[in-house]
């Protein structure tokens, strides 16, 4: 099976590159999530309950 690995050394580059993109994105997300405005989060959480609408039965 080593023959496969030897021939696809370029793979590492792909893999590391895509992981870096994802980890950067994820860390950005993490920072944002922790800094996020409480009011905004509350507003989002309650979106399914928005009672501006008469017939939303809950």
């Amino acid at each position: 099976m080593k023959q496969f690995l030897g021939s696809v050394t370029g793979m590492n580059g792909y893999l590391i590159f895509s992981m870096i993109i994802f980890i950067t994105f994820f860390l950005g997300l993490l920072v944002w999530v922790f800094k996020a405005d409480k009011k905004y989060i509350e507003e989002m959480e309650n979106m399914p309950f928005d009672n501006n609408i008469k017939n939303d039965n809950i």
Partner: protein
Amino acid sequence: MQIEKFNYDNKIVRNFAIASMVFGVVGMLVGLLAAIQLYAPAANLGNQFTSFGRIRPLHTNAIIFAFVGNAIFMGVYYSLQRLCKARMFSDLLSTIHFWGWQLIIVCAAITLPLGITSSKEYAELEWPIDILIALIWVVFGANMIGTIIKRREKQMYVAIWFYLATFVTVAVLHIVNSMELPVSFLKSYSAYAGVQDALVQWWYGHNAVAFFLTTPFLGMMYYFLPKAAGRPVYSYKLSILHFWSLIFLYIWAGPHHLLYSSLPDWAQSLGVAFSIMLIAPSWGGMINGLLTLRGAWDKVRDEPILKMFAVGVTAYGMATFEGPMLALKNVNAIAHFTDWIVGHVHVGALGWNGLLTFAMIYWIIPRIFNTTIYSKKLMNVHFWLATLGILFYAIPMYWSGFTQGLMWKEFSPDGTLQYPEFLKITVQILPLHMLRSFGGLLYFSGFLTLIYNVVKTMGQGKLVANEPAEAPALEKSTMFQKGDFWHAVLEKKPVTFTILAIAMIIVGGAVELIPTLTIKSNIPTISSVKPYSPLELQGRDLYIREGCNACHTQWVRPFRSETERYQGEYSKAGEFVYDHPFLWGSKRTGPDLMRVGGKYPDGWHYNHMLNPRNVSPGSIMPAYQWLISQTLDISMTEAKLKTMQKLGVPYTNEEIANGNVSLKAQAEKIASGMQKEGIAVESDKEIIALIAYLQRIGTDIKKQNTVSN
């Protein structure tokens, strides 16, 4: 601020609900029949249209795309309108979507029992239906995105992100996996061969579970669970984190379906690593769902809808923990091909998809019919029947899976297989299969109570087809404010959001697929491996028609227990280069067939297909007597060879032109050989072609054993 009046379209929601219920009955009944056939072969009903290999894909397609699919559209059409404070973008698109989807289901219900199949799991439908699926899926997507664009709510709630990811990813998966070259109106060959086909198929198969059975349901969980519990989701922040990591990580994990196969090692390792990482986002969703019920457990005790959510979300947690465990190579070595996988899948399907669907139906129907549920007591009965049904289903399957996995591998002290006879192991697990079908029966009877309850509820209420609502118009100028966080901005821009989601899944998909599809050295060729003869190719198509790959693998793993049992070398990538499509299978209800070529005389196969119990007493394989009476259709031979040539199989033009001449010559030789054994068989029957194929499988490698790279 201007208040706008509009109506929600409830009729489309009701229609999808009814379709889901109707096809749920069909799908579960067919499943029950298939389960019974696994211990009582007479339940194959003696005809080709209801034999196991043909109704197994009918069951899976009916459950996944008809029962669950219609439930997804029901839940999405209900929640999307309310979360966007807008009617669906276009009533016409809604109608086309509804009827188009039902047409696809009817086409599937007709073609699959007829044996018209591509053989690729959960993507069995032939090319004209594939095109129809793509078109209708785009109609759904256009209708959804149109609705999101004309919404009256600034932000897109988390449920909508899951819906968008579902739409784009399923579209990509379906198109890439359905690349096939038509031979005729109802026959095509996969554009990929062997290892490459297997990789694309399981990239699709795994992610169909992710983006058809998981993401839409997570989205619906985020809407309906808070509604039913009367409290907001436990952590909106967690939902953001787990959404992005889930869609990114899921797409990589497909190769865990191909461990110990001839898929390049790096791809297998990638699949394992990402499967383990997947626990985190999956459990993020489960924890978020269950903790939404925190402090509401008193409600859970009285409210069967919440009970269904609680058990359904727990089943999701169990299945998504079990999945990564099954992806560990050492666990996979025992579990793969066994009933354990069937148990695992059904914890997800019956628990997560089933119970959530039931909860949504019970929640939606009384509301759109402006009434209350007919009988809460019956809902409780349903909850218990479903829960017990899942237990009676899953536990015997786990037990059976362990038994199979261990008995297949057991060696006696003298170094020979303890149970060399495959059938002995099969007979051992039959009582567990009986228990499993009892579990299925319980689950199905619970479903019938739902239908009764819903019909009664619909009868006592009246459909509010157009539900009036009002909301302030969304003013573009106030949309974006200074100081908005970037994710908040993203939530206001559906198109940008969708593009980012596509990018997320494309990265993983591309890294996983492209090297194996393009780098030649990933598939070392074997010079003695030659294309199938015309007769063998026809036989292979019969193998596909009868769905033999539903129960038999063609994939000997590199274990001594397997090379010993199947008396040959483990499978090599180079052996499959002309296999359009690949036929590795995923389940060993019967033994592997990779090295069956030349193992038995032709006459043995004839008698075995006529009635398996003639040669293997106690066998649970269906009889295939129609193969003996039906004449082989050779009108397509030339077209089939030509299509293969276009796909890169090195048939010469002369071979193609003389296709039927050489087919007849080979058939004559096989038939006369059997006639000498005293079997009265004509050379133009289907059985001859099938035997030719069976005798060819996996034999090329024996001729010459030099591997050139």
